[in-house]
């Protein structure tokens, strides 16, 4: 019985398998409509995350399965003081697989140690969110057809953005990847990620504060939000905010086949005028998120 807690729990061959399965689901959805009949997914969301929860639920329904669970801690037994371990032991009696979101880092790992059914980490605090990374990987693969030799620009809050850290870790296992890290000085990628992943694996990377300068080189542009609360003062925030808003003007020097991604929700970091650009893939990314979760559920249920 396997769980997915960290993206590195999966070997690259297993990621390739998941992507191939997701591709097959996209091509032949009818073949999967009934595959999870009589199977139940428990969505244990100890903090709200509408998008991720709905993606898991949609995934299970499209596989012909059923869903039970809760969407906030207040409606769970943890409000009465029950431990994560006890909750999942009980849920293991009702469901076949668990998707868990929890504000405390490491909670899904604790759950996977206690549960008798597979546990999928659907986000634990600022720590891991492996199905977002799988979503990003499927999006890249669907748009580029491969992972090797891509120039990947990561823009915005690279300091606190867990999706960015996980994506860098996952992509670092492929060859010829180059990262362009685009952020204000205040929100640069932490040294430990640079040291442990980029330097240790001998990857090619560069750091810049200018989205415009980086734009012509990029095959992938992964946008994240520069959040007001990350700055010590309002003045710095206002000074930097607009530099990292993607507009049609900034895209003029971009490659014709650039893939623009964003983990969503977007606030203002991508102008809505970009939405109609054929290179904008962030809503497709949401759809791919459902397909890769379908593939993952099937893998963990060994179906």
């Amino acid at each position, binding site marked *: 019985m396997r769980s997915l807690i960290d993206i590195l729990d999966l070997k690259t061959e297993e990621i390739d398998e998941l992507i191939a399965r997701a591709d097959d689901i996209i091509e032949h959805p009818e073949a999967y409509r009934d595959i999870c009949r009589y199977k139940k997914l428990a969505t244990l969301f100890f903090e709200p995350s509408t998008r991720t929860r709905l993606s898991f639920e949609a995934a299970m329904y499209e596989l012909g399965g059923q869903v039970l669970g809760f969407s906030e801690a207040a409606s769970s037994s943890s409000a009465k003081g029950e*431990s*994560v*371990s006890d909750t999942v032991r009980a849920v293991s009696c009702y469901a076949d697989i668990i998707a868990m979101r*929890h*504000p*405390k*880092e*490491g*909670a899904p*790992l*604790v759950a996977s140690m206690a549960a008798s059914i597979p546990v999928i980490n659907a986000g*634990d*605090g*600022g*720590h891991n969110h492996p199905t977002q990374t799988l979503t990003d990987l499927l999006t890249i693969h669907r748009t580029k057809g491969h992972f090797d030799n891509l120039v990947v620009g990561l823009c915005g809050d690279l300091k606190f953005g867990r999706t960015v850290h996980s994506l860098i870790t996952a992509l670092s296992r492929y060859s010829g990847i180059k990262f362009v890290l685009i952020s204000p000085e205040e929100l640069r990628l932490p040294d*430990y990620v640079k040291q442990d992943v980029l330097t240790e694996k001998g990857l090619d990377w560069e750091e810049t504060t200018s989205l415009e300068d980086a734009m012509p080189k990029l095959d992938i542009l992964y946008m994240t939000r520069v959040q007001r609360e990350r700055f010590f003062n309002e003045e710095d925030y206002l000074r930097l905010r607009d530099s990292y808003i993607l507009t049609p003007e900034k895209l003029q020097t971009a490659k014709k086949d650039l893939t623009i991604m964003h983990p969503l929700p977007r606030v203002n970091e991508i102008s809505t005028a970009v939405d109609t650009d054929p290179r904008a893939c962030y809503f497709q990314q949401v759809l791919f998120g459902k397909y890769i979760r379908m593939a993952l559920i099937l893998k963990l249920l060994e179906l």
Partner: protein
Amino acid sequence: MHIDEIKNGLVLDHIKAGKAMEIYRFLDLGSLNCPVAIIQNASSRKMGKKDIIKIDGVLDIDCNILAPICPDITLNVIKDGVRVEKRALELPLEIKDIIKCKNPRCITTTEQELPHIFRLRKTKESIYRCLYCEARAEL
């Protein structure tokens, strides 16, 4: 300064100067009934200054647990007044319930019954990370 030779026990040598009291508290040596000597700022050719702890009694612990705190320590085992073993400490692959995770977002902060487990991630730099949240151990 003269300290009696120990008969059966341990000498923790090459403790980084200033760390002896931390190790004394960490091992709870104050609760022992046997003689314990702490020598601070002893001169050392290798380190300049060092601390030493001598314990004239049997201590039933794996001294490797000290390695993450002070990796330079040399352990000397004394039996019948004779040194029978001298070795450097080895970093344990896992530390359990010795230190606590300081990350306020870690699951161990709310689920009190969970064991506090840290795993060795980088031997060269003695980096341990929490099993659950992967926060770096503060040693």
